[in-house]
């Protein structure tokens, strides 16, 4: 039976994971993400799952990679410093095609920065944090209910494309409590991993279907395959030939690019007649709703394009947006990150104005309104 609760974003993320069928969590505590671990520690045994606090963040992601190979849905959660430490393994999960979900609840600044204050400073790191070329899927919830639904969505994408999916929360969303209606988990469709359709003798572990994604066998079911971070061919064994290298890296990218329209998620808020578009995401979108409502009352035609999936970046949609509006404003809690992507997509068609705030406070609706008025 559905329940109405007052939950934190972090809590909703943990509950979303349970609802999606997650049965394994490994991680290392770090503010402002720790509640996710704490809730999983309590909840997982209740649903027959396992929680383990590892010795560091690297071990945390390593353990979920291992658990995923046994067929489990897995989660780890962290914040900036831990996210930096996990990067090498994110690359591993990408090239070895191991579905995992990582929640990063962003804090302020490089290094230790300011652990308890909000920022959106890891957005570009989410895209480029690991070495080498790799595709990325990253989602940014803007409300507590969305923390729940996007977490489930993360598993859908992660299982479908066999790759890491990042949940990029910020401290605003992660720590605020709001109303959420939680459905009975039995009514939620659990994302399913595509298993092999042939027997072990015909199985080639990394031979893709036409969607570019190879079916994945669970460890312990007799398929006996090899998983490696080296460049490999369809057999899964190392093959560093130029042909195999290109084929693999291309496929990894194309399985995402091909479906970019399916993956892309965004919300349009009062954009229909807008002359000014605010492009933003996550906690900052909350300021934008409010600012837009205020602006509209003053007759200013402003609307919002809210990025829900930030990576892959919806280039096409933003290019279209640039056809419709006169100016684009990109408020962010950082020194200017996603605004660069917007600029790239807009190609000079309309002015793109960054509105960067990085003083550890959220952007208030009033500030944003002023900014829009002074354009």
């Amino acid at each position: 039976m559905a329940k109405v609760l007052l939950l934190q974003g972090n809590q909703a993320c943990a509950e979303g994971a349970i609802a999606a069928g997650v049965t394994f969590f490994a991680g290392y505590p770090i503010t402002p993400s720790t509640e996710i671990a704490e809730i999983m520690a309590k909840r997982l045994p209740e649903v027959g799952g396992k929680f383990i606090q590892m010795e560091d963040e690297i071990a945390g992601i390593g353990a979920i990679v291992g658990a995923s190979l046994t067929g489990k849905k897995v989660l780890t959660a962290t914040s900036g410093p831990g996210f930096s430490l996990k990067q090498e393994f994110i690359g591993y999960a990408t090239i070895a095609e191991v579905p995992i979900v990582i929640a990063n609840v962003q804090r302020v600044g490089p290094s230790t920065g300011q652990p308890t204050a909000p920022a959106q400073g890891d957005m570009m790191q989410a895209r480029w944090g690991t070495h080498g070329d790799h595709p990325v899927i990253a989602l940014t919830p803007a409300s507590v209910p969305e923390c729940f639904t996007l977490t489930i969505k993360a598993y859908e994408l992660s299982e479908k494309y066999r790759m890491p999916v990042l949940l990029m929360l910020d401290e605003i969303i992660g720590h605020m409590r709001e109303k959420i209606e939680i459905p009975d988990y039995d009514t939620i469709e659990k994302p399913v991993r595509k298993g092999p359709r042939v027997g072990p003798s015909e199985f080639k572990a990394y031979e893709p279907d036409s969607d570019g994604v190879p079916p994945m066998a669970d460890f312990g079911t007799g398929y006996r395959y090899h998983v490696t971070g080296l460049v490999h061919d369809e057999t899964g064994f190392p093959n560093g030939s130029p042909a195999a290298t290109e084929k693999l890296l291309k496929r990894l990218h194309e399985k995402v690019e091909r479906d970019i329209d399916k993956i892309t998620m965004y919300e349009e808020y009062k954009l229909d007649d807008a002359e000014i578009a605010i492009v933003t995401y996550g906690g900052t979108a909350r300021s934008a709703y409010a600012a837009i409502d205020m602006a509209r009352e003053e007759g200013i035609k402003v609307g919002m394009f809210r990025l829900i999936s930030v990576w892959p970046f919806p280039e096409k949609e933003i290019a279209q947006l640039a056809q419709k509006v006169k100016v684009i404003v990109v408020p962010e809690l950082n020194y200017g990150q996603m605004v660069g992507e917007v600029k790239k997509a807009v190609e000079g068609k309309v002015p793109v104005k960054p509105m960067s705030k990085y003083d550890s406070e959220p952007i208030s609706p009033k500030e944003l309104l002023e900014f829009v008025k002074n354009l």
Partner: protein
Amino acid sequence: MIEMRLSGSGGQGLILAGIILAEAALLDGKMAIQSQSYGPEARGGASKSEVIISEKAIHYPKVTKPNLVLAMTQEAVDKYSKDLPADGILMIDTTFVKKVPDHLKNVYHLPITEKVTAELGKALFANIVALGAIVATTKAVSVESITTAILHRVPKGTEDINKRALELGIALVAK
């Protein structure tokens, strides 16, 4: 829409108080958002818990124009009552707060901690007393809902004493 800020020092249970207030609002069928802020330095330092209650969807989760500030320490008054408009309510625990800003008109001087220690033997329930005072003053939520919300959140076996604390709070402003 009513915006409230509950502030004090780390150990005074104000985050919990904010959560209870927001849950009570949900019970009343309203929308509510609770948020808090504390530094890594907030062990014993100033901390705040904010609650916004509204009939409609609430976009921005932080308090921008507080209708009420509860301040349970002097530091909290100094730090968190600055943006309170002249007609806003400042509620202070006179046990710890000695000085209040001049420009404010509605200041409730309540001996919260003193009273709760005297009546219930423990400072621990000061946050619930404060809730009682807030609810009685603002009517932000119904007494019924706040009672349910409190009972839902407090440890088993402490229901009665918490109810008494709530009543104490209500009585404090009734006076």
